[in-house]
């Protein structure tokens, strides 16, 4: 019974932990501009993160080493350093966006200027990293993140023309004169669904929780059931924006606009529920990105790492986590718009994705690391298709960003 509960809990936290500020903002922007015509990108992105996370989970569980330890070992220190700099910068940008997202969600609840909330939010996050057990932290954020299901409930309650939404999703097409912007948001949405930190955290978390070969099945269930259901939350956000905001001529630029469809469908209670969900999702992702910065640097440098270790046992790791949280706060205190940071972070996620995807794909095929559990032919075929998609998205991201003037 305990084992079934563990599996269910893992799946639920995977669902609730799937959405972060990047998914929230990008899906709402896309829904308000293009309706459901980019829903296929969410499906492709969910498939990609399932492939990526399942390979990373297997490599970690069998080798007892997390992503950056493997990357350094496999690529050597110089190439791995280049990899580290790119991935670390991306994860830091995402951390900044997530802390800003927590402040914006709190502003919706209490009406206080988000700039005043950034410092208390950061202190609270650091206290959680320092004092709360890994499993408690992960489960609490994931389970509370399930409140985002309010977006799906709102979509149903709005009573949309399902056949019209289905047509938009099944016959995707860019509005006239917006094909480049459509392509830009396709890349952004893909980057939001396949953020690299998710895999750093997933694989490092596997080491923190001491996964072994016997946990492979549970890990696979978490990924293959949890992430696709998490993708449904993303589609709920895009769908509710498509039904309410698109016809009203509202293009999402602020988090406060994202909850308006929920107000229309479910009223004040619905808004409070989804705002708490946004708070949990962004806070959970802020913890994950902050820890991921520490994981990546400590794993590359060969320092002791892990939340399970006291600061005195892993000082460099804990200083790194505290340092990146402080740096993110300083960046936010300049008055930079967290939503703008989010938009940059999802696009650059797409650019940085090959840095970690390719090494993990190579190692997942290496018997020296995974023994007999190398990728099968079907998984390899799918993983190679995703390698091509990831490469295309990475190469196209910056030209599209420039050509479309950030999707304008």
């Amino acid at each position, binding site marked *: 019974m305990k084992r079934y509960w563990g599996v269910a809990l893992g799946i639920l936290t995977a669902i609730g932990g799937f959405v972060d500020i990047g998914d929230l903002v990008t899906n709402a922007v896309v829904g308000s501009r293009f309706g459901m015509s980019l829903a296929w990108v969410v499906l492709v992105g969910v498939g990609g993160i399932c492939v990526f996370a399942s390979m990373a989970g297997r490599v970690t569980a069998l080798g007892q080493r997390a992503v950056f330890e493997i990357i350094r070992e496999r690529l050597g220190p110089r*190439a791995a350093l280049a990899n580290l700099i790119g991935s670390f910068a991306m994860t830091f940008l995402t951390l900044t966006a997530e802390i800003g997202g927590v402040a914006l969600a709190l502003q919706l609840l209490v*009406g206080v200027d988000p700039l005043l909330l950034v410092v208390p939010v950061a202190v609270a996050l650091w206290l959680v990293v320092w004092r709360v057990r890994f499993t408690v932290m992960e489960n609490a954020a994931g389970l509370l993140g399930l409140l985002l299901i309010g977006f799906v409930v709102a979509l149903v309650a709005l009573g949309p023309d399902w056949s019209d939404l289905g047509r938009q999703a099944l016959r995707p097409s860019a509005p006239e004169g917006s094909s480049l912007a459509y392509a830009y948001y396709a890349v952004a949405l893909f980057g939001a669904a396949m953020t690299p930190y998710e895999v750093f955290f997933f694989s490092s978390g596997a080491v923190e929780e001491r996964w072994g070969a016997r946990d492979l099945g549970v890990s696979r269930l978490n990924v293959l059931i949890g992430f696709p259901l998490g993708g449904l939350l993303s589609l709920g956000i895009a769908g509710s924006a498509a039904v309410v905001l698109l016809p009203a001529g509202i293009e999402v630029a602020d988090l406060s606009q994202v909850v308006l469809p929920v107000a229309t469908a479910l009223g004040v209670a619905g808004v409070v529920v989804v705002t708490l969900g946004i708070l949990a999702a962004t806070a959970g992702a802020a913890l994950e990105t902050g820890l991921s910065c520490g994981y990546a640097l400590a794993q590359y440098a060969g320092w002791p790492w892990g939340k399970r270790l006291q600061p005195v046992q892993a000082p460099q790791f804990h200083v790194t986590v505290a340092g990146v949280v402080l740096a993110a706060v300083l960046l936010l205190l300049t008055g930079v718009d967290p939503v703008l940071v989010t938009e940059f972070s999802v696009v650059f996620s797409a650019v940085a994705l090959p840095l970690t995807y390719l090494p993990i794909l190579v190692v997942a095929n290496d018997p020296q690391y995974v023994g007999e559990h190398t990728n099968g032919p079907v998984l390899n075929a799918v993983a190679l298709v995703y390698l091509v998609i990831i490469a295309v998205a990475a190469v196209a991201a910056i030209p599209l960003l*420039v050509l479309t003037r950030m999707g304008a």
Partner: protein
Amino acid sequence: MKRVERRPGCCSRWAAAALVLVLGAPLAACGAAPDPLDVAASDLTSAAATVQLALEQHERGRLAGTTVEVVVDDALGTVAAAVTSLTESAGSPTDRELRSSLERVAVDLGTALRDVGDALGRGEATTVSGARVTELAARLDRLQREAGAS
């Protein structure tokens, strides 16, 4: 498990190329400035429509005053950014005419939004200022179409 030997070669070059892409991205992004007239028209229309929707929901008891105040604050930020962008933009004589119209409506919208915010802050009805926002939203809608056609 044995430690695996480093395998240098194409991976190093691949990683270096990827790093150039990642670090070059922010530089490339700096040069990405949206067309001010189109974007300002679209942003102003969207801001007015957002406040209109939020006030409708507030009047029906579906959105708390605190949340509407945040929506109005955000919309004011959008209006301020649009006004700055319009002031700094240059353009053809036709564009300049459109820009002046947009600037005038943007200033009026800013005033109407502040009135809405003040009324909400005092816990009073937003009927008058809300109606003004609706009227400006309709004008912006027309101007946005002109901006799109120009």
